[in-house]
């Protein structure tokens, strides 16, 4: 019994991390029609920036926010300098983000060398707490809570604010949004910054659980892709559902069939592709 409870909570914690990562990916994809292939690299770079700040004695939460801000600035620069030059050429934009992912990954390897380094979690969330007759690390519960708060905040932003209405309009019909006077270019930059910030923040939050190592980017990017293919592009609800499903499958797969965990992970994607190619909650076909 303890095994199932612990692994279920682990699944939710991983699902929370995946949501923080893929929500931004999904929003960017939905609005700009770009699969941002540097999203995994932003996640890893965020974790490394957080690591450096933590080593300098910065408070964990402050480090996470600072890393998020740093990656947001980087994302904004990439959007302005590279992606905007290629406006209208979606494929070129995607390939450019892939090139940027390689640059970031190799630069990280250069600066922080090759060993996996665990981040130290915040002191306030150290230790384990009793949950339903078993013990569970407090930090992982905290991650579930943080992910829930971020999901709620994003939902409020997208559904209840004027900017959110613009984003939804852009996701549904970009040309019409432009025609009715929505400042689409500024919106692109804002959403790209937001998505990058979430990725960087997510990297730091994931640090105490996953550690940070070269290749973290390549491990996380496919997970974000699968979550988005599963849940549907540009849909927050889809990102929530996809993240939880993938969190459970990955965690239980690793516990029960470690050799094949990575393959089992992609099975739901295959099923969804065959049955409903636009994803469970998708509004636009990919």
């Amino acid at each position: 019994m303890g095994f199932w409870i612990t692994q279920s909570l682990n699944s939710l914690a991983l699902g929370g991390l995946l949501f923080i990562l893929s929500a931004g990916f999904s929003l960017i994809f939905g609005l700009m029609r770009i699969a941002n292939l540097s999203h995994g690299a932003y996640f890893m770079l965020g974790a490394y920036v957080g690591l450096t700040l933590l080593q300098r004695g910065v408070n964990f939460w402050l480090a996470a926010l600072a890393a998020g801000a740093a990656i947001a600035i980087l994302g904004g620069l990439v959007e302005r300098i590279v992606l905007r030059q290629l406006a209208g050429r979606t494929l070129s934009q995607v390939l450019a983000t892939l090139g940027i992912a390689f640059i970031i990954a190799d630069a990280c390897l250069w600066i922080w060398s090759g060993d996996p380094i665990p981040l130290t979690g915040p002191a306030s969330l150290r230790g384990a707490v009793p949950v339903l007759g078993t013990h569970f690390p407090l930090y992982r519960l905290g991650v579930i809570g943080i992910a829930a708060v971020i999901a709620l905040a994003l939902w409020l932003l997208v559904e209840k604010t004027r900017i959110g209405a613009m984003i939804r309009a852009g996701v549904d019909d970009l040309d019409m949004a432009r025609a009715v006077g929505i400042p689409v270019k500024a919106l692109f930059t804002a959403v790209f910054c937001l998505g990058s910030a979430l990725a960087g923040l997510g990297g730091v939050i994931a640090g105490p659980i996953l550690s940070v190592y070269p290749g973290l980017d390549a491990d996380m990017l496919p997970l974000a892709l699968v979550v988005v293919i599963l849940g549907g592009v540009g849909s927050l609800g889809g990102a929530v559902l996809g993240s939880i499903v993938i969190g459970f499958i990955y965690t239980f797969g690793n516990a029960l069939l470690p050799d094949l965990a990575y393959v089992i992970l992609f099975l739901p994607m295959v099923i969804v592709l065959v049955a409903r190619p636009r994803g469970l909650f998708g509004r636009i076909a990919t």
Partner: protein
Amino acid sequence: MRYAPSIAALAALLALPFALGNDYYVNLASQVLIAAIFAMSLNLLVGYGGMTSLGHAAYLGVGAYATAWLTLRLGLGPLGAGAAALAITTLMAGFYGVLALRASGLGFLMITLALGQILWGLAYRWVGVTGGDNGLSGLARPAPLGIDITGARPFYFFALAVFAVAFALVALFVRSPFGASLQGARDQPRRMRALGYNVWMIRWITFVLAGFWGAVAGVLYVYYNNFISPHALSLTQSAEVLLMVIAGGAATLTGPVVGAALVVVMKNVVSAYVERWTLLLGVVFVLIVMFLPDGLVPGVQRLYARWRTRP
């Protein structure tokens, strides 16, 4: 006269190892030929089919792994192992094609990427079969028709023979009526459908064919290195081959070959001095995409045409 450039190029390639002298350069030329076959196979999808795949390493990797595994674990001869590896990889391409062609454009790109990562993960984790991070080693080069190709030069000629056949068949394919319908399906899928073509089937057949030629490159790859590791299936590998196609010029016959030569030579030269190949790959990728989107071969052709029609 139509074949004069091809014959001249073939003669030059036959003479190349004698001009290069040193085994290091001959081996580099062999690497270029293998990469060129690999890039030509992807070009069928990316260039002529308009389907940008970021998981093409799957076919090279599976072809190579299957050859090594069948030889080392089942004790098959080189001919049997090679043929079986090609068959297995082609079958897999058939299955992957059904999944990937559920989408087009970016959806296709994401699905091929995800499918490619499955195989990469499998190669890493399924240690009992793939040897995990250590890969499979201990393969010996075969002796096709009783000719020993252990040396650098004999292997080069072997790779050249395969390359020449692949190039000729790909050229025939592209210029065939089927190749024309593939390009029609790329440019005007709706019109092609209205004309009664089965666009999905045209794309699927091309997908399988690209997988087959990828596997051919994979078999050559594993016999060149006598070793295979998960790196062959990595996203870096898929990105490298896509760069070859785009840098050389997608939807041209010679573009992928030029791109392959460029990338392989650049990689070897850079790796000899610094360890930062991935960084440079990223920079070149961004620069090519931004400033030379249609590739070197069409770019040079445009310059040449302008020079010929100069006032």
